[in-house]
């Protein structure tokens, strides 16, 4: 047994054939120590063109999206439409534990690189496909987009103000959530593969992940109360009070979920504003008892929050064990003292783009810490290391592949 294992996924090899739907999956694996080899088309993937760019200068090594989502990976190029490219990929796949791909369903099979073909040579291999709607079903060939999955997955219908159109979240969260589910499911499949010797095809549908993520507004609630959830601003339908409230210099989010918390809030409102009515026992109990007077309760809460600055009410509310947090801009997150005390953000030195400050570990492992082991790769940066150094392809062959457009 290897007892060193400084990285959680040290020794796992992953091949990534992913566009923006799945690159975060590869990043999660790579930052935990897997050897993730990103396979791009010759000249580099289209995700290198996603704006904005470092210093707003368009450059294949300057896309902020690309730089963030490809940390700790190595990069090679291959034309998978050509026999030589397919052969190299097949050889690479024999050395891998996992392949993550985001092609339209059937495309890998069409290239002779589908699960049946790859697993014949490597029975323990896990192939994870991340697609808009899954590998089966009448919509499997539908074109996906983050906003389209957010729409079909039910998240948009319930997000935004009642009088506005439905709205999607920043940062392509349908893709992000699907990528995390794919990463977790891949490791579950590898757990089984390590025990049984049998890999499998993991079929992630972004529509399904989004539907799962919106569960609080999902079928269980609807079948129980007969109310189809729709957009209703910033408050959560089930919690009263909840939502954004104005302060002297900004906005906070406040949520009450327990009878005890309501009593503490009501007492504070009373102390601060002199409001007597708020102490009326008819408002006590679970949120359901305040649901019919939600707007009145919001007025009471607003009278309190308006008296404070964001910072003052945040910490005073928390001193009273009330769930109040600031509505932060990106700039406020960047200077947040708690994150700073935890040294959350990291700086990654990139040979072309320079020092890049970025969000750090999403979780803290005591023995195998998350870390960025290298910056996002340049186009084909590791072609020689991987193809010559590891697969034993002669240098001369590699040169002819390069001039022939296979790399």
């Amino acid at each position, binding site marked *: 047994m290897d007892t060193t294992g400084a990285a959680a996924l040290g020794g796992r090899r992953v091949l990534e054939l992913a566009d923006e739907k799945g690159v975060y999956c590869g990043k999660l694996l790579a930052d935990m120590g897997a050897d993730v080899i990103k396979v791009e088309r010759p000249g580099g993937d289209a995700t290198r063109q*996603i704006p904005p760019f470092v210093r707003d200068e368009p450059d294949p090594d300057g896309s902020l999206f690309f730089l963030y989502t490809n940390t700790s990976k190595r990069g090679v190029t291959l034309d998978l439409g050509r026999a030589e490219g397919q052969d190299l990929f097949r050889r690479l796949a024999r050395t891998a534990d996992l392949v993550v791909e985001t092609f339209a369903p059937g495309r890998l099979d069409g290239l002779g690189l589908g699960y049946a073909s790859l697993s014949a040579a490597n029975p323990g291999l896990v192939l994870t496909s991340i697609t808009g709607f899954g590998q089966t079903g009448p919509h499997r060939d539908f074109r996906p987009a983050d906003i389209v999955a957010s729409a079909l997955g039910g998240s948009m219908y319930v997000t935004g103000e009642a009088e506005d159109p439905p709205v999607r979240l920043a940062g392509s*969260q349908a893709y992000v959530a699907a990528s995390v589910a794919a990463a*977790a499911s891949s490791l579950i499949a590898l757990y089984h593969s390590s025990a049984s010797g049998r890999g499998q095809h993991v079929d992630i549908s972004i529509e399904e992940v989004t539907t799962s993520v919106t569960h609080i507004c999902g079928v*269980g609630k609807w079948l129980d109360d007969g109310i189809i959830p729709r957009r209703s601003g910033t408050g959560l339908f089930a919690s009263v009070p909840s939502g954004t409230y104005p302060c002297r210099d900004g906005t906070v989010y406040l949520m009450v979920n327990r009878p005890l918390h309501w009593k503490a809030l009501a007492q504070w409102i009373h102390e601060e504003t002199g409001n007597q009515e708020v102490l009326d026992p008819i408002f006590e109990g679970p949120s359901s008892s305040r649901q019919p007077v939600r707007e009145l309760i919001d007025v009471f809460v607003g009278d309190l929050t308006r008296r404070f600055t964001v910072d003052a009410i945040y910490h005073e509310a928390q001193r009273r064990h009330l769930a109040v947090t600031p509505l932060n801009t990106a700039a406020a*997150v960047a200077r947040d003292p708690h994150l700073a005390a935890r040294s959350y953000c990291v700086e990654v030195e990139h040979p072309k783009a320079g020092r890049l400050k970025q*969000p750090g570990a999403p979780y803290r492992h005591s023995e195998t810490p998350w870390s960025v082991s290298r910056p996002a790769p340049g186009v084909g940066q590791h072609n020689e290391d991987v193809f010559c150094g590891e697969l034993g392809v002669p240098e001369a062959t590699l040169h002819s592949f390069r001039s022939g457009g296979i790399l």
Partner: protein
Amino acid sequence: MTQALAGLRVVEFTAAMAGPWIGRFLAYCGAEAIRIESKQHPDVVRLYVPPRAPELGTQPQLSPWFTDWNAGKRFAALDLTHPRAVELAKGLVAKCDVVIENYSTGVMDKLGLGYADLKPVNPRLVMLSTSGYGDRGPCRDYVTWGPNIEALSGLGALSGLPSRECAITQYAYPDALSALHGLFAVMCALDHRNRTGAGQYISLSQFETTVAALGPVMMELLVNGREPQRPGNGSLHAAPHGCYRCAGEDRWCAIAVSSDAEWERLREVLDDPAWARDPRFATRAARLENAAELDRRIEEWTRERTPGEVMLRLQSAGIAAGVVQNVEDQLRHDPQLRARRFFEEIDHLKKGRVVATGVPLGLTGTPGRSGRAGAALGQDNDYVFGTLLGMTPGEIQECIELGAIETPDDPQGAVPSRPP
């Protein structure tokens, strides 16, 4: 067929959503998940008053969220302020692989069940704590729910229409997001343990997880020093891109056109109207420049049609489009979710059968199973303390009388143990 995580055992000290979801997913994949609860600190999700029968009062077994998020688990009840209960909990931990907890920061330590207490009992243990702020730092004791994290992380203010201050979800997105990250984090630690034999402790801060999920957006500020614009439904690199009103009450279709070739196909679907030949829409850059007018033109077309028709006509032309579905659309009218049997019917001890949202892990070789819906506090005491810990009925009774083991409130719910 065997399940992927058959043989793995998980003990949960959890409440609400972010913790229980992890156990739910592990149980779905074949792990045995045992949830410890106590009456002194009931899960907020159990404080459920059925909206159609409020006269029944609080019904801890009827919450559709509780039953779904806890499907497939065993339920044991312990008063962890009692030393004997802590001993029993440790006995369970000694026999398990994974502990998941999302009590307030520091509570497990105070109970004598922190990682420092549990590691000697089980050095191979993987333990995950998930909380708003993580286990250290000046705000570690602060209280949050999912939507608080949306505000705190920037997700709220970075999302929404440009005319608004923010958008906050109705579904506590950070709870789900951090549960998925937590599941991944646990599987990483198990991969490491299976290779080295060593367990470890994982602390997850939902604040940090959510900021990480916004990475590229945050880097606009961290690298370029500029507060990102609230994008609404638009895109920096695709136009038209948005949510378009369709025929009917509150009906909408999302459309995303990312290339000139797709734009040409969209023009064909629209019967190549004169306005679409305007040079202001000829290239992607031009369309991005004139996106607002483009959106108005497209909406003139979509609002005459149902969202289903818009989606099918555009998808037939190879253009990304999708109905903005509500929950009824998803359950009753979505042929894709139906063909893939995404929604499941699962057993519920009091309701008979309930519809549960599927678990989107796509394990085609080792399909998951949802098991029994979440049941009563202490439902499976006999199995957990009798079968698993080997206690005799007399010993269990003694612990009940001591107050260490708690019994289910609702005798109807106390069906003899059967596999969940």
